[in-house]
């Protein structure tokens, strides 16, 4: 029973991880760039939600559109002011470019808000829980999971059922061929960054309900997102979804496993270490991931 509970909790967390990984995988799929600043986008989304709910006295869940818009604008600004120029350079310059963006956003947040750990004190779902039979769910996590799922499905619909999404996927498959077909690939790149920023902004808005927000929160989540994306296959959207859930389950089950066999060394301190280790094993053993099509 305790294991089943851990699995369910893991799935709830995993849906959020999947939403974080979604933006990363879309950006990678469309333009072969790894966005190191992705975790910082999440952090900005969290801060946006935090401050709007605090200053306007509204529930953090209501502020989700604000986080989404800020995330999208951030994505667009990053694309037009930085990434466009990075594309001309070699891969190492691209890596350092987005890395510089990551540091910049992190220290901008530190400059503006200080290094304090902040958490949302009151809200519609904060601190409440729902008991379904023997299982007790935090309402914050449950709502985050459901809304993440909805956001994920919306983006999936956008990509697979609309003309715009088709154009985006065509750009990802073959940039030149897409350009010949009259698709403005430059705009598709921008769209990928807007979707990536928007989804991760929403994820930040959801996360702020039950997670401390501080300027360096991004690193942990960007590493989790890297692991999810690697497991699912770089560029794969279904992959990111299932891998996110799987990583969520690993992260919950691992401390449980250590607890059951009575080993201190496999304790909860290492629940994120195992994520890094998982990334390493996945990319070494199966570089294309579960559903990957880019190598």
């Amino acid at each position, binding site marked *: 029973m305790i294991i089943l509970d851990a699995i369910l909790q893991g799935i709830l967390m995993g849906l959020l991880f999947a939403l974080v990984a979604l933006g990363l995988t879309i950006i990678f799929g469309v333009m072969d760039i790894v966005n190191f600043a992705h975790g910082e986008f999440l952090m900005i989304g969290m801060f946006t939600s935090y401050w709007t709910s605090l200053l306007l006295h509204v529930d953090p869940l209501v502020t989700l559109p604000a986080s989404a818009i800020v995330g999208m604008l951030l994505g667009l600004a990053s694309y037009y002011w930085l990434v466009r120029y990075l594309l001309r350079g070699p891969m190492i310059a691209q*890596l350092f470019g987005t890395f510089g963006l990551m540091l910049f956003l992190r220290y901008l947040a530190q400059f503006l808000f200080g290094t304090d750990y902040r958490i949302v004190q009151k809200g519609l779902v904060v601190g409440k829980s729902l008991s379904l039979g023997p299982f007790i769910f935090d309402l914050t996590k449950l709502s985050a999971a459901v809304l993440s799922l909805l956001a994920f499905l919306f983006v999936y619909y956008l990509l697979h059922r609309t003309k715009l999404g088709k154009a985006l996927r065509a750009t990802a498959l073959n940039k030149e061929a897409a350009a010949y077909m009259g698709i403005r690939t430059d705009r598709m790149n921008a769209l990928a960054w807007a979707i990536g920023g928007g989804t991760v902004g929403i994820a930040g808005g959801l996360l702020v309900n039950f997670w401390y927000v501080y300027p360096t929160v991004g*690193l942990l989540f960007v590493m989790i997102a890297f692991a999810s994306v690697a497991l699912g296959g770089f560029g794969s959207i279904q992959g990111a979804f299932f891998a996110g859930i799987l990583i969520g389950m690993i992260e919950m089950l691992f401390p449980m496993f250590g607890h059951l066999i009575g080993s201190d060394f496999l304790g909860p301190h290492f629940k994120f270490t195992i994520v890094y280790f998982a990334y390493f094993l996945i990319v070494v053993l199966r570089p294309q991931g579960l559903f990957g099509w880019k190598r």
Partner: protein
Amino acid sequence: METLRDAFDFRDFSRIERIVFLLFSVFLLVFPWLGTGSFVKAVMIQFLLFSLFGMGWNTIGGYGGQVELGKAQYVGIGAYTVALMMVWWRIPFWVSMPIGILIAVGYSFIIGYPLFRLKGHYFAIATICTSLVLQDIFINWKLVGAAKGIELPIHEHPDFLYMQFKSDTHYFYFIMVLFFAGLFYMNWFRKSKLGYQLRMIKDDEEAAESLGIDARWCKIKAYSIASAFVAVGGGFLAVYNLYIDPYSVMDLDLSIKIALMAMLGGPASMWGPIIGAAFLVPLDRFLGSWLGGQRGLIGLDFMIYSALIMVVSAYQPRGIWGILEQFRRKGA
């Protein structure tokens, strides 16, 4: 013998470069007598240390073209080996340092073997992961002091066996000797067989393999050389600070700084890492002490720093050295 001649042979550099290098060497030799304050001296020590790190990174990252972002784990291995051996068994620096290098090189082979199956982004992120895993282990490992870190026992000053001194001047000359050793090694390395092989792999890996170069093995060798360099710097850091913890010697920020300095100065060039360190270390320190000290301005120094990184990566990926060469070519 030939190796030694190669290491001290700077004839293939232009005359300006040789003159600047000579002046720079003289400056380093007389620097402690210039009567500068202790802050400037500390900055100079940091500069030489990061040049050493950067030279190490340059073997795999510059000449080999592999984006390696996990060098901090080897700084940690070097520092922890020296510190722990001193604390547990009172082993002198000159014994523990080679052991530290051996451990770092051995570990780099174990890690490097699977790591170099990967390329590009996958490789870069995987190096970060290995470094973070090791840091997490050290943070939670009670035997080695866990998150609290370890303090080195303080000796009667000055102690040339344990390399502990009261004055920064001693430390300065110590790191300067290491710096020049590294520099001469790099001068040999860039003309060695491995150096040429690496550059070929960087340009076109498939062509290199078709000429019979074992690309993966070459990269592993370069990676272990880089690790040895960085471990020496780590050992120095342990006896210089007399205190280490996983956050100061194994942090991701350190890995990034190492790669960044070499990258900003100009990868795959002899002077790149030195220029990068000469530029970034003082910038970091002075901005930090000027802005970081003032209340309400936390983080502004890093914002300027990271904005610079973005501008350089967007406009001149070949770094400051690339800009200088551009100017020279225009002038000539």
